[in-house]
């Protein structure tokens, strides 16, 4: 066991950090309305920033070289994510493109799809959103109802998606629709241009920030068979593969630790960092560090090509527990400053903690998985 970074990893982190520092404007925290990844400013900034990152080899270093990457390992990818998150995610919603659509295309895309999408994703010029959840299919994703019926060679899609992040400015949507019978086996994945006629998008105002949540209405949207990713009725293999690839999501502990650092400084300046406050902060911080290690363990397994394990689910719940303690701490001791809109970093972190146990699947699903795979508890009869 070793908990230190290699010289190469340290240098890579430094390079990413300098690249970011050189490009973010001085007023970044305020311009982005508290590091809101969907703010007008961040989205516009990312359109310029992502291609620059790509040119510097810092957008998809973990991709294979044949698709424009540098064959860097999962540690480089994770370090890159940590540094981007630390800076307030100047890539905005590139996450879906780089971590989700790209790897899915590499494995399941046709040669034509690979040629059409991968160079543009690697160049940082495409934004994807994820059309999975529906009003009646959240945690129970396999019950979704948006339908795609065949019309000649084409497919006609109708239905509704919800909670879709970035839908109002994404170029494409990775859409799950029902093409067969009920359950997981009747689903097909489509890569849908967002400007296709029949698609309407409504922003849902939310406490997560601007354009974090949307409704996407699909009315007789005509799609060519070339938009299908993978096989008809076999979307679940794609979903499972990618979820395994990317299930721990983003290094949220970085955001929370950043906010804790700021909060401690403010409280110390006020002479309000007494023993009880310190103890509470220490609990939140310690759990953030535990979540960090749990994530690192998953990255380690990925680097070693280990089979999927419950480590991912354990890490997800550790992140949720950590953010809950952070939210409680900030709520107890920093609320006056949140009300006074004093510190955008703390405000942004506090806002994000609301979604930690919900985004990319309710935490309870992870608990189910831990119970079954890690503890091997019996299923309900």
């Amino acid at each position, binding site marked *: 066991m070793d908990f230190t970074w290699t010289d190469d990893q340290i240098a890579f982190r430094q390079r990413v950090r300098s690249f970011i520092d050189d490009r973010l404007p001085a007023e970044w925290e305020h311009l982005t309305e508290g590091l809101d990844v969907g703010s007008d400013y961040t989205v516009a900034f990312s359109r310029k920033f992502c291609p620059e990152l790509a040119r510097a080899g810092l957008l998809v270093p973990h991709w294979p070289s044949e698709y424009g990457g540098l064959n860097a390992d999962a540690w480089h990818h994770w370090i890159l994510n940590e540094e981007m998150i630390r800076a307030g995610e100047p890539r905005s919603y590139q996450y879906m493109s780089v971590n989700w659509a790209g790897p899915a295309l590499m494995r399941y895309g046709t040669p034509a799809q690979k040629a059409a999408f991968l160079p543009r994703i690697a160049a940082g010029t495409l934004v994807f959103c994820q059309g999975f959840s529906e009003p009646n299919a959240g945690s129970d994703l396999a019950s979704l109802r948006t339908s795609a019926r065949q019309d000649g060679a084409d497919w006609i899609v109708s239905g509704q998606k919800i909670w879709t992040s970035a839908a109002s400015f994404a170029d494409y949507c990775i859409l799950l629709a029902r093409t067969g019978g009920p359950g997981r086996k009747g689903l097909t994945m489509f890569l849908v241009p967002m400007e296709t006629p029949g698609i309407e998008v409504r922003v849902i105002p939310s406490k997560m920030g601007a354009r974090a949540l949307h409704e996407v209405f699909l009315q007789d949207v005509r799609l060519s068979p070339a938009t299908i990713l993978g096989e008809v009725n076999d979307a679940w293999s794609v979903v499972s593969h990618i979820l395994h690839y990317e299930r721990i999501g983003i290094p949220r502990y970085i955001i929370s630790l950043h906010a804790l650092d700021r909060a401690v400084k403010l409280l110390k300046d006020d002479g309000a960092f007494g023993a009880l406050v310190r103890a509470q902060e*220490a609990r939140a911080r310690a759990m953030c560090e*535990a979540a960090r290690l749990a994530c*690192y363990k998953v990255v380690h397994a990925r680097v070693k090509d280990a089979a999927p394990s419950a480590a991912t689910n354990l890490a997800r719940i550790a992140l949720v527990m950590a953010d809950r303690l952070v939210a409680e701490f900030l709520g107890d001791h920093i609320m006056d400053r949140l009300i006074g809109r004093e510190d955008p970093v703390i405000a942004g972190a506090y806002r994000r903690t609301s979604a930690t146990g919900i985004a990319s699947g309710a935490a309870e699903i992870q608990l189910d998985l831990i119970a079954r795979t*890690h503890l091997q508890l*019996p299923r309900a009869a």
Partner: protein
Amino acid sequence: MDFDFTEDQGLLIQTLERWAADHMEIDANDRAATYLPGETLAAELAEQGYFDVSAELGLLGAVLLVDKVCRTPWAIEVAASALVAPMLNLRDLPRPLAMLSVNGRPVARFLSTQGAALVDAGDHVRLLRNNAGIQPLKNPYAYPFGLFDGDLLAASERLDDVPVAAYRRLRQLAVTAEAVSAVQAALDLTVEYVKTRVQFGRAIGSFQAVQHRLAECSVMAHSAQLLLYKAAVDNLGGTQMAAIVTHDAIKRVLYETNQFHGAIGLTLEYPLHLWTYRLRVLQFELASGMTGGEGVG
């Protein structure tokens, strides 16, 4: 960043797990004992050189030893002897080795006339050995306890070469290792229990309310273990964080393991009481080590 054990560490784990598996059974006559005396087993481990494991495998080796040995129901003093003392270059101390503080009550686990005790005297560390003023103490708390009656300062000798800060960190790591082990043991016992206990026509472990709470317990146990390993590898850096998360894990696991056992867990005929009482002692020791809300940042 590497989460794999070395070959030697892996071998140690394997050997100790086999050893522990041979010592999990409790004789029917011993079921209601408040603790199972582990000195014979400790002597066996000492003879085989396990208490010197840190010389070759460092702090992590000692932590692994404590973890595996303390999974057994026997009250074996291993943390102070194999982890704390060797790292302070204290060799050949009598066993068992207890840990006392002049500021606390003069009672400690494993405090006995045969053994010795490290004494936190505030600004330095002292050693109390083979003292006749020590009396065994009867209580339900799953360890042999001793009470020292007398003048602790007068009865002990000053250890000039032992820095008190290092001693405290090592003590905290040692207790954390014992606690992580006990947390996992209590959890393992409970997970097995809910798989076999049938109510309403089904194993209670198939109820989601039970599953989720046990899953959360295992996240806490896993988190505590990761921080413990890191503190051991990083030469005690982050020990406080490991202690804090372990302390949280204890409280959660104490409650849930007892809830899911129901009334059988209240009896002294079923072994949960050993883990319950141990965890209560370790909860207190960890809390005492967090001197008045000391931060970690």
